[in-house]
């Protein structure tokens, strides 16, 4: 072989090698960039989901695009893996060769995410759908809406309507409350009724156990079980699903990309945790925590795989950081029970400490011995878990002093306004001066504003270090509502009852009010008025004596109007109503 031929062979092979090297390096660089999260991953569509993707790419490209950007897609989890139904699933149907269900429940997610499922089902979030018979529910269903459907057809009305169309009277609940709290998912029955978990009575595997209820399910022309429109679409956190599982993972992990990055950001919680009654997101934004987050967001490593505080980031906490995420002091352990680090519940009218039982329910038992028996997780443990988060950025002294300030604030609210307000409302109800149904008396609205809106704003403001919410949007308004509305309205009701002849009931309520106002913390309120009244009474007495002297008679009843305050002041205030005393609304 000539040297020229050898040269040619060497050149060809060397160039081929170099070309292959460039090719391999290009793949290598791309792969490493994907691994480091710098570029979108290449997605290979799993074979069993290929036809779904091909079709839905045209019909609903948003779903597919979101899925392509998900970790699911990168790991080969396609449409069928999550949407697949099993034989016996009441909402399963055949669709293009696959047996699937529309709604993916936490039980479905638990096929892969078992630990997350168990933590979540134990959480207060999971119980969010259980708002039947609560005060909020009554407000939305009865006060705001109508339990009967509206027959809206009226050719002369300005409403949009068609002949025979009926509007759901519960729309306010369906669109408002249940979109956060979660609906009780229902299938339409052939007889027009609703079939929910109550009729299906699913077993632990999620399969219905009542065959009659299953037989009654209405299917559309394509054989798809019909989900009732009042209950779906719904991704409320406590959705009560047909398979008996609670909640919706996509409440926080929006489908179909299930982005951890999004779940880590406060805006994600802000769908529900905002507004006049629990503005946690606004409170957070006002706090130093929120300010730091806005400024340092790009350094927060939000795309990190585990996102462990103290390892992946320390710049600022988000909602997830404090309430759920793993940190360096707990081995990076994430929890899907956001109540696990909360030591006060500020949800009820009177805040109570978060001792929870084995089911994760807050214990209301007042007897210490019984209470101790019930406690599965005490508030101190929960507080310590939160402190472990705080300690990543604050000293123990700082954290302990913060908690002292917070506890004092909550106790001040509880003792000065919440328990007294509750006692007055109870007195009014027990003495028959207001009716049992909520919201039909003006004072019930006043009380609701006091604890449900202003009282919570104050307590949440204090819990998350937002001074303006703690004070001006909080305690200031609580005080104004208490002194300027609740007390005058309660007195007015009592005085009116007295004038109507219901003296005993009226006196009982007035005595309760006087007892409360005689306490040192309320003394200032009527002290000046009482002083003035006493002076006026004394002047009157002097005038009367002078007149009597002139008339030569004495007024024996001259002291009849002696200041009630003097008596009231001497009364020793009773213990405030117990925390566990009957609140006006047992649940919210």
């Amino acid at each position, binding site marked *: 072989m000539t*040297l020229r031929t050898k040269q040619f062979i060497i050149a060809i092979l060397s160039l081929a*090698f*170099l070309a292959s*090297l460039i090719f391999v*390096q290009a793949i290598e*660089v791309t792969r490493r960039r994907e691994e480091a999260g*710098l570029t979108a991953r290449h997605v290979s569509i799993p074979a069993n989901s290929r036809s779904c993707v091909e079709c839905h790419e045209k019909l609903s490209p948003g779903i597919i695009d979101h899925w392509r950007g998900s970790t699911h897609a990168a790991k080969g989890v396609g449409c069928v893996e999550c949407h697949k139904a099993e034989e016996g699933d009441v909402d399963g149907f055949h669709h293009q060769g696959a047996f699937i269900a529309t709604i993916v429940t936490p039980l479905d997610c638990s096929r892969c995410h078992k630990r997350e499922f168990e933590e979540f089902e134990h959480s207060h979030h999971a119980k969010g759908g259980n708002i039947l018979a609560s005060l909020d529910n009554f407000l939305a269903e009865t006060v705001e809406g109508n339990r009967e459907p509206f027959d809206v057809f009226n050719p002369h009305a300005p409403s949009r309507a068609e002949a025979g169309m009926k509007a759901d009277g519960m729309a306010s609940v369906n669109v408002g409350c249940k979109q956060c709290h979660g609906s009780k998912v229902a299938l339409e029955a052939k007889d027009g009724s609703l079939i929910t978990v109550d009729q299906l009575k699913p077993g632990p595997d999620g399969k219905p156990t009542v065959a009659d209820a299953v037989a009654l399910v209405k299917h559309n022309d394509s054989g798809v079980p019909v989900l009732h429109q009042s209950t779906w679409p719904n991704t409320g956190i406590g959705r009560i699903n047909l398979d008996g599982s609670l909640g919706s993972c996509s409440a926080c992990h929006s489908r179909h990309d299930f982005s951890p990055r999004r779940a880590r950001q406060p805006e994600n919680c802000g769908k529900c945790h905002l507004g006049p009654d629990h503005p946690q997101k606004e409170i957070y934004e006002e706090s130093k925590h929120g300010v730091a987050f806005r400024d340092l967001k790009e350094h927060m490593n939000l795309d990190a795989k585990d996102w462990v505080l103290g390892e992946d980031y320390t710049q600022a906490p988000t909602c997830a950081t404090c309430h759920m995420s793993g940190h360096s002091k707990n081995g990076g352990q994430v929890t899907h029970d956001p109540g696990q680090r909360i030591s006060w519940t500020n949800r009820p009218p009177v805040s109570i400490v978060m001792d929870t039982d084995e089911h994760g329910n807050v214990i209301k038992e007042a007897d210490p011995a019984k209470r101790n028996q019930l406690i599965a997780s005490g508030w101190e443990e929960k507080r310590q878990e939160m402190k472990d988060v705080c300690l990543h950025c604050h000293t123990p002294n700082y954290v302990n002093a913060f908690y002292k300030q917070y506890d004092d604030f909550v106790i001040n609210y509880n003792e000065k306004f919440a328990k007294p307000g509750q006692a007055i409302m109870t007195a009014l109800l027990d003495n028959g001066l207001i009716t049992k149904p909520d919201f039909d008396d003006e004072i019930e609205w006043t009380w609701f504003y006091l604890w449900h809106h202003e009282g919570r704003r104050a307590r949440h403001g204090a819990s998350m270090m937002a001074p303006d919410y703690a004070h001006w949007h909080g305690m200031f308004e609580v005080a104004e509502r208490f002194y300027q509305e609740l007390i005058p309205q309660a007195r007015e009701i009592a005085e009116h009852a007295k004038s109507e002849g219901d003296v005993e009931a009226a006196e009982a309520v007035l005595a309760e009010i006087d007892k409360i106002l005689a306490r040192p913390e309320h003394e200032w309120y009527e002290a000046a008025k009482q002083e003035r009244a006493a002076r006026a009474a004394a002047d009157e007495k002097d005038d009367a004596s002078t007149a009597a002297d002139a008339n030569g008679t004495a007024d024996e009843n001259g002291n009849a109007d002696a200041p009630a305050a003097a008596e009231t002041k001497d009364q020793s205030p009773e213990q405030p109503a117990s925390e566990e005393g009957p609140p006006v609304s047992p649940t919210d």
Partner: protein
Amino acid sequence: MNGVRSYVQAWLGERIPVSGHQLRELTNEPVPNHLKHWWFCLGGTPAYLFGVQIVTGILLAFYYQPSPATVYESVDYITNKVAFGWFLRSMHKWGATFMIAAVILHQIRVYFTAAYRRPREINWLIGMALLMCTLLTGFTGYSLVFEQLSYWGATVAANISDAVPLVGGVAKQFLLAGDGYNQRTLSRFYVLHAAILPATMILLIGVHVALIRLHGVTEYRFEDEPEDAPRHFNFFPDHLLTELTIGLIVMILLCAASTLFPAIMGPKADPLTTPEEIKPEWFFYVSFRWLKLFSLSFAVLSTGLIVCAMFLWPWIDWALRKITGYEDISIWIGVVATMLLIGLTMWEALAVH
């Protein structure tokens, strides 16, 4: 002025007794004319890149900490905090790729021109030993980053070496400093990567170059070259200029690769989570694919045999020529082997799992 110069010359000449003439003789051996073609000059490139690796490696060693607790953070510090740390790390990473590529190109040239034949068999052996050292340095260096892939790459490689009969277990123990990846593994890799292997390579390169100088470079003549064409040219400055040009081009390419595709931080090694796909560095793709094609024991044994054959090729080539009587049989075997190398590497690069 001249007086000072002659004084310095005399002073130095007395203490370093090498004359200018001897120095010229030593550095300016006539270079065969075929080396004017640059593709015959790739032997110097790996050495040049080796120099780059030593310089960048020393600079990286200022910051690198080979302890499992701090290693990843120290690499992260180099990449994200140290001034030009990212560039040094990228140069080192791409330098390794370029060096291995240069070694392979050099070997292709040597092989297809049969430059390993008598009397240069020993230098082929040394070259092969250098290739093995280069690959092992690449492997240990990759593992030092302590990313998921490098950690699992090392674990898999150790398990593969375990499958080698007789010596496998010992080799694994030696490599990992124990039965599995442990607290002492990283420092072992580091010592191998930064001390033992480079020192060995410096010695081997010294012998490699010394043998070249003793034998002289194999001389070739193209058939169509005129008879009176010059047979040699000067090392200095002609050949040095060619080498410098190649060095400059390599440096430009290296800087471009380092700047455009800098080394990045992959996920930190997590001994509890096996990644979806484990891949070694690209230069082991060929053997990794080979492993996936056959049973572990066959693949390991056959790889061992192939490496042995590569070492002993000068004698195998001799035997094959004797048996077949076909002078160029090695060339066609080489063509198949190179195509296999390229094919298997690309296959593995494209494979998802």
